[in-house]
């Protein structure tokens, strides 16, 4: 576990080539420290999604650097070999919809990640259950996703994002389907988790209810990020 969180320097992404080329990301500079929760805000078409995909190691940037802790992930066209393993082991995802695997129960939904990494089933489940207490879903450990409420599902999704103790978690509109009370609860949990596991969390959102809670916010406009200070309001 690194003390340095995630660092992005001069990240660019160009789709296509020649006359039809579109520069989705022109210059992205970001840094999120471990234990920190930052917001990423931008109108649609601003390159927000592209940035998220680059951060999530789903697509490669055209230029620029990204570092996860001390490890270089991208460096001007160079990239680490196994992005899939990288996603599995070092990046946690929390999505707008929980996207739980419907045929696995709560425990296995979460334990699947350590299992995919090669951990024995029992150990993986133990690892998953450790999180449930903190997220207050212990009593639902054997339930199927379809039996959970929206908030519970989102908490399971958070647990899945956390289970491998990744240095960074990307949360894509995690509060969109929730009312303000629940949305704030999610943000509280994310903050708690960030503290607890020293994880850098980037929350992509345009949810007015939660924007005030961030201490630091990155705005993205036309592929360029601007950092500003957030209100850092309490979410109680």
């Amino acid at each position: 576990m690194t003390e340095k969180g995630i660092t992005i320097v001069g990240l660019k992404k160009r789709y296509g080539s020649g006359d039809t080329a579109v520069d989705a990301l022109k210059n992205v500079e970001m840094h999120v420290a471990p234990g920190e929760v930052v917001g990423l805000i931008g109108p649609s078409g601003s390159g927000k999604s592209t940035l998220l995909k680059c951060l999530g190691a789903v697509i490669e940037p055209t230029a620029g650097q990204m570092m996860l802790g001390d490890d270089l992930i991208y460096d001007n066209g160079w990239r680490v070999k196994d992005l899939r393993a990288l996603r599995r082991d070092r990046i946690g995802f929390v999505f707008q919809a929980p996207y739980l695997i419907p045929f696995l129960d709560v425990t296995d939904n979460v334990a699947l990640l350590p299992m995919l990494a090669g951990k024995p089933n029992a150990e993986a489940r133990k690892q998953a259950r450790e999180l449930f207490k903190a997220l207050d879903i212990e009593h639902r450990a054997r339930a199927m996703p379809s039996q959970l409420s929206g908030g519970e599902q989102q908490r399971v999704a958070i647990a899945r994002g956390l289970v491998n103790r990744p240095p960074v978690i990307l949360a894509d509109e995690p509060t969109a389907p929730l009312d303000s009370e629940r949305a704030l609860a999610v943000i509280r949990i994310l903050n708690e988790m960030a503290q607890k596991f020293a994880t850098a969390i980037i929350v992509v959102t345009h949810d007015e209810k939660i924007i005030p809670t961030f201490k630091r916010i990155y705005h993205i406009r036309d592929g360029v990020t601007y950092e500003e200070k957030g209100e850092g309001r309490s979410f109680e």
Partner: protein
Amino acid sequence: MISLAGRDIMHSWGKFVFTGMGLGLLIGVTLSMAGIYRGMVDDARVLLDNSGADLWVVQKDTLGPYAESSSIYDDTWRGIRSISGVADAASITYLTMQVRRKGVDVRAMVTGITAGGPGTPGWPPYLIGGRQITRGHYEAVADIASGFKLGERIKIRRNHYTIVGLTRRMVSSSGDPMVFIPLKDAQEAQFLKDNDAIREQRRRTTENSAFNRPGVPGLLDAIIASQSVNTYVNAVLVRVGKGHNPDKVAESIRRWKRLTVYTRSQMEEILVGKLIATSAKQIAMFLIILSLVSSAIVAFIIYTLTMGKIREIAVLKLIGTKNRTIVGLIMQQSIALGLIGFVVGKITATLVMAPIFPKHVLLEPLDSVFGFIAVVMICILSSIVSIRAALKINPAEAIGG
């Protein structure tokens, strides 16, 4: 690692089992189709086996007695019997006709067997009920497929026969049950005209003044009697003595008696190669069509199941699941579907379809094994489309856009 395919099946087991059962019925039909072909070949073999003959002597240049009609004099057997190497020779007649029983017609192959007792060529080698024919007239042994019961009286042409014994699996090459009756009755039945025809013929003969001469009493009666005599049979079944080569015996009969003789292998060739060749081709076509339909159905089901899981697969990919795992998920499901289908198919083919089919359905274990392999292969092949589709899913789809 847990089995994702297993979990998915467990989760939607109802859909799976019922789809599998549907597929199973289709596979059952496919297996039955193969079984019908095997049954036809087996029927032909059993027909030859049960005749107890090594050689079939028939009318010159015919493919008789099963594939073509053949008629030879009924004393031909005496000459054949005296040829060296012939252990037994017996005349036989085969005629497919309607047999009446309580006013209902049953189509049957009436077989006339030479008097002599069990073991004479042409006699049913084993029974499942009753006894063999002991009287020289008006007794019959019928195949159980005819629906006749022991002790029942049936009518063949003008005569009534009592069913004294029952056989099983004694059918003609076209699947008609056999009814064994004494040769003399059968000859009569085969060539016997109905009463109207006889009366008509008598009238015509009577009106012919050349036959009905006033100065020659008795001439007309003699002529009418000579018209109703029948001395033909369809074939002579020959059993070759121990230590004699059937081919050589056949050759000497061919040479001296100027008759056509078939050996067992030639007869099988005629029955399987000629008589049921068209049906076999039909069944082969059906088999191919059914296999294609089955694979299309498996492919379609698996594709639908996979497409229903696009999000999940995208999430799985995003959280770092290996392609191998995803391929395994789809292929295992496809094979599981195939397995359920095969098991259901085998059961329905054996317990439901084989008994209700009017024709003999022979389900060879080896065919089942081939069928199983084919099902698994078809499932693997059918899942390829879905696998390609699944591998094309972009993990980015999980992230909003």
